[in-house]
């Protein structure tokens, strides 16, 4: 998988773009103390602004990781079955299960290397630029990677049945819907509207990406921001860049089970497919 990514210049393209993004954001972070005008901003304010910007940058990464996961997973199986590459491979003593699982493992490893590397680099640059480190970066990475796995697994399931283009579009739309669903659910909770809240919850369970994103946000919020949250208006929970509480462990267990179920569905789907 890595060899393919290197030879197809995916690694080169992604590396260049990531370095450019990190450099740009680093430059931005370094400008924060200047926002005060002639006098540099006080340290507490710098920390506050840096923390919120970090969350925005994390959102950018979550979006990039989500898209990457969908776009590498969608053609993973369909590309090979459509081109005929899969024919000679599947005639060997390899089971359909091994074939799908092998793709999943390879892609998840590749995406982990990218996620960990890019996020670590960004955090180092932020620290160098403005001296800020978020409270729980490893936890945030875990949640972001979890989101990536959700979309990778979904993309792979779609890949067993539909072409890469269709799978890519469907995955992307579902990611967007999940994000909207999270906001909708927050609004429903804020205004005590059960129906709207249920719609939000349903999307959250159907595609767990937004719930995991909230986990990442929470891990990146400094204690000071969280302490001040009780004073915020009711609609604050709808803000996709703020999380007053971590996701419940039941949700995290559901997200893990979701990944397993969808992967099992991908295996089952491919086992019954005629090549």
């Amino acid at each position, binding site marked *: 998988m890595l*060899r*393919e990514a290197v*030879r*197809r210049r995916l690694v080169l393209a992604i590396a260049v773009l990531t370095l450019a993004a990190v450099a740009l954001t680093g430059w931005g972070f370094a400008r924060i103390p200047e926002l005060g005008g002639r006098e540099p901003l006080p340290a507490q304010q710098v920390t506050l602004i840096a923390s919120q910007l970090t969350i925005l940058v994390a959102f950018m990464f979550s979006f990039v990781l989500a898209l990457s996961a969908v776009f590498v997973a969608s053609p993973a199986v369909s590309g090979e079955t459509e*081109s*005929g*590459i899969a*024919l*000679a*491979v*599947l*005639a*060997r*003593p*390899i*089971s359909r299960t091994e074939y799908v699982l092998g793709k999943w493992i390879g892609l998840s490893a590749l995406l982990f290397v990218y996620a960990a590397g890019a996020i670590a680099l960004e955090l180092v640059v932020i620290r160098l630029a403005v001296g800020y480190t978020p409270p729980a970066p490893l936890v945030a990475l875990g949640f972001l990677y979890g989101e990536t796995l959700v979309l990778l697994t979904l993309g792979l399931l779609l890949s067993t049945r539909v072409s890469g283009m269709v799978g890519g579009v469907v995955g992307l739309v579902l990611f967007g819907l999940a994000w909207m669903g999270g906001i909708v659910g927050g609004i429903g909770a804020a205004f005590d509207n059960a129906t709207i809240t249920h719609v939000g919850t349903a999307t959250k369970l159907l595609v767990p990406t937004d719930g995991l994103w909230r986990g990442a946000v929470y891990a990146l919020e400094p204690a000071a921001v969280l302490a001040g949250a009780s004073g915020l208006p009711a609609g604050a929970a709808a803000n996709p860049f703020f999380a007053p509480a971590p996701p419940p462990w039941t949700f995290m267990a559901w997200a893990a089970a979701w990944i397993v179920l969808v992967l099992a569905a991908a295996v089952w789907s491919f086992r019954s497919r*005629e*090549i």
Partner: protein
Amino acid sequence: MADVAIETVDLAKRYGRIQALAGLSMRVERGSIFGFLGPNGAGKTTAVKLLLGLARPSAGEAVVLGAPISDERAHREARARVGYLPELFRYPGWLTAREVLAAHCALARVERDRWDGEIREVLTTVGLSERAGDRVQGFSKGMQQRLGLAVALLAAPELVVLDEPTSALDPVGRRDVREIVRALRARGTTVFLNSHLLSEVEQVCDRVAVVDQGAVIAMGTLAELLRTDSVRVRATGLTAEARASLAREGFALEGDGERLVAPGVSGDRIPLLVEALVRVGGRMYAVEPVQETLEQRFLALLKEH
């Protein structure tokens, strides 16, 4: 059982309303070269996919190297001893030829220390030794097919299934493939060959099955299938009445113009044919006993079917 490589009983496959394969029953003896012939869309590739577990039959059963296709685990084990060149031969373009073969060594469960030797041997056999380190995306279609053949020959399989193995090759390449196939038989390997290039099949196959619209319309050795009891005649001056008169005597001529074929005439009947022809006013220029080509027999079978 041990000397049958492939056996099918009423193997059938339906895709929706289309009967891709209708009740195929055949036996392929070990160490023989079996040709599966038919026009495009006849069901040849469908049969191959059923035998290799790439698709599931709608009805019937097949046994490949002793493993029934309905027994998934046993069939998977048997596939370790099968080499396959698909009709649609594509390999990942970003890999070199050697890497493609290495990947297939891993898939075929060849011991790691044997890989280099196997790869070198098959590349030499198919004539790609000099391109071993080049990426597949730079290969011509013919070279990709040679690579596909190399993939099929890895690790000395007991059964080699070739689906249109010469479709992208020039005459030299086709001759090479024929020699490879003959060499396989000499080693005791069974070869199952799909083709619509009848001249190729004619030159290497021991037995053939002719397929049309999913059904087998003829099966047997080439000697059994091809009529040898015909005579080719070059004659002029035969009017329609003359030919009708000859037909009444039992010499029904086929064809138009000067060059005619008299089926069912051989041996002692040849002088009788000549005498009858002259008697009705014909002028004979040539008489020769002939074995019809596979192409002629094939077209005749299709017309009858």
